[in-house]
């Protein structure tokens, strides 16, 4: 969960903010050294905002602390004077000879953090983003060898299912390592400390299966979404010696029960498209394909697949509502209305109400500024702009952010638009003019609202290497390729409608 502080541009906020950044960094799992460096970076940026952003006047700025299991991010957002740090490089000779230390603070910031990004958001001000990667001990370093499994060759093993506890963390990491070697996509599961932290913070829940010898032989978990009541069915393993004994089905039943007890409104899976196995499993358990996200993850994330698949990995979003859909009121953009209707039908929506076109504001009546949150996944090479209010500067803000992220080698940019917002059809039309195409429906993805996701691939992809399973996913793929003017059975070439696409 984000923690946001609103602060005045006064010198006396620098010390407490720096202290908070340090303590927060330690709490989310940074080492003392990395937390200290993060604190120094925060000190430098907050000092800069206090001194220069609002010359001669009172102002305020926001600082947001955001963390997941492997990343700690601090976002400083202010609407002061225009400024671009890249235009003010530090020069040590100028500092000594002319007493001009311009750029010194930013040089220190860049040294102190693993990733630093500056986003110019036009009328919405500027964002400075600081990222530290959270280091943890890999299970292979903690326990390189394990005892043999006494139940391995027995057919009559009794299994016990129980809700997963923080104290199970090390056993889960061992199971993952034993089952998948180094090839499991969810890297956090190799680090007991991260698993324990996520369970303690109630960021995920699940079940473990133990054999008679108390060995952990199964694990299945749901990861809660940070800003909605849905969860990702994203972590599963069954020991190779205990497969074909119905453990996966028993765990999934227990997991769905838990999800219902915990009040989740839906669960989803991110199924890779380098094969259709995960998609088949998801559909077996009643999930519906709602989106095809191109190039969302780097191939290195899937080590077992990387040898054969060198392009960024595309993902199918499969969703199952746990609280049934009833009536949905959605402003469907005309070019995607049929597709969205098909998806809503598959999700069991009883009544889809489309307000009249007259309710949709024209471009000139959109608010002047866009309110949105950029969710940048530096290690995965993608960014999702979650729009709260679409304004006339939407594409300017998006394009400026992509320009600012040019050095980060992004593979794809996505924009999430709330379907209950009358401005969404207008915003969609504007984004389509700037190379964005359909990705799909993200059901209940942010604050339990349905979002239309648009995407713009920034690299070329081979469509034939994207395998989809369900009829709906096939329809999505066909539509998206047509919209991009990418042809199957051929290596893709970005079309003129994707002006900034670059070759891999």
């Amino acid at each position, binding site marked *: 969960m984000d923690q946001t502080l609103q602060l005045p541009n006064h010198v006396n906020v620098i010390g407490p903010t720096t202290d908070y950044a340090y303590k927060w960094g330690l709490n989310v799992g940074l080492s003392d050294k990395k937390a200290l460096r993060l604190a120094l970076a925060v000190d430098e940026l907050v000092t800069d905002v206090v001194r220069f952003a609002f010359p001669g006047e009172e102002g305020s700025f926001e600082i947001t602390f955001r963390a997941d299991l492997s990343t700690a991010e601090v976002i400083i957002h202010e609407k002061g004077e225009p400024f671009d740090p890249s235009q003010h490089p530090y020069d*040590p000779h100028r500092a000594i000879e002319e007493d001009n230390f311009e750029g010194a603070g930013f040089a*220190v910031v860049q040294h102190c953090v693993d990733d630093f990004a500056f986003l110019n958001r036009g009328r919405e001000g500027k964002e400075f983003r600081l990222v530290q990667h959270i280091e943890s001990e890999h299970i292979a370093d903690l326990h390189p060898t394990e005892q043999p499994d006494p139940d391995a060759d027995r057919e009559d093993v009794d299994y016990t299912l129980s809700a997963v506890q923080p104290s199970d963390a090390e056993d889960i990491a061992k199971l993952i390592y034993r089952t998948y070697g180094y090839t499991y996509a969810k890297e956090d599961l190799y680090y007991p400390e991260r698993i324990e932290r996520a369970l303690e913070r109630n960021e995920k829940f699940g079940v473990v299966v133990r054999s008679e010898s108390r060995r952990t032989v199964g694990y299945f978990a749901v990861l809660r979404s940070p800003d909605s009541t849905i969860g990702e069915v994203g972590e599963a393993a069954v020991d190779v010696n205990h497969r074909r004994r119905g453990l996966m089905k028993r765990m999934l039943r227990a997991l769905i029960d838990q999800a219902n007890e915990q009040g989740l409104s839906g669960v989803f899976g991110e199924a890779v498209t380098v094969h259709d196995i995960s998609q088949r499993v998801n559909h077996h358990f009643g999930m519906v394909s709602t989106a095809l996200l191109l190039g969302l993850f780097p191939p290195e994330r899937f080590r077992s697949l990387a040898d054969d698949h060198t392009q960024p990995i595309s993902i199918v979003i499969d969703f199952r509502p746990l609280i049934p859909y009833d009536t949905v009121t959605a402003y469907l953009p005309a070019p995607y209305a049929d597709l969205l209707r098909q998806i809503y039908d598959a999700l069991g929506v009883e009544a889809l109400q489309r307000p009249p076109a007259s309710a949709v504001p024209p471009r000139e009546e959109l608010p002047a500024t866009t309110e949105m949150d950029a969710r940048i996944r530096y290690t995965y090479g993608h960014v999702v702009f979650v729009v709260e209010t679409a304004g006339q500067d939407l594409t300017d803000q998006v394009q400026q952010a992509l320009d600012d992220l040019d050095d980060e080698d992004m593979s794809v940019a996505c924009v999430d638009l709330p379907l209950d917002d009358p401005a969404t059809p207008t915003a969609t039309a504007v984004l389509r003019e700037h190379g964005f195409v359909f990705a799909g429906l993200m059901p209940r993805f942010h604050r339990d609202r349905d979002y239309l996701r648009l995407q713009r691939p920034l690299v070329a992809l081979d469509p034939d290497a994207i395998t989809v399973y369900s009829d709906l996913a096939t329809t999505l793929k066909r539509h998206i390729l047509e919209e991009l003017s990418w042809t199957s059975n051929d290596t893709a070439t970005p079309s003129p409608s994707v002006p900034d696409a670059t070759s891999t």
Partner: protein
Amino acid sequence: MDLERHGDTLTVRPRRDFNLMAVRHLKYHLDDATRVRIDLARARLVDTEAVMALHRLRAQGVEVILLEPPAIFYEVLEVLELESAFKVEQLVERERS
């Protein structure tokens, strides 16, 4: 920030980090001191505002001595390529007098 003055020597002990706030306090109390001892035993961080202040004090002819600067101070000097210009051996007092 704790302060002591003995003749021309001003000794300051920031209670927290050596940052913009501490620099402003230091300048406020500097008066005509020609020697400044800055005890950084309680400072976790020394930022670029502090580094700039040190440079400017020395440029004004004030003798500056640092006691127990945190490790990150040396890192900041290295990033800013100022180690030799700052003559760290002279700047930092190795043992308390």
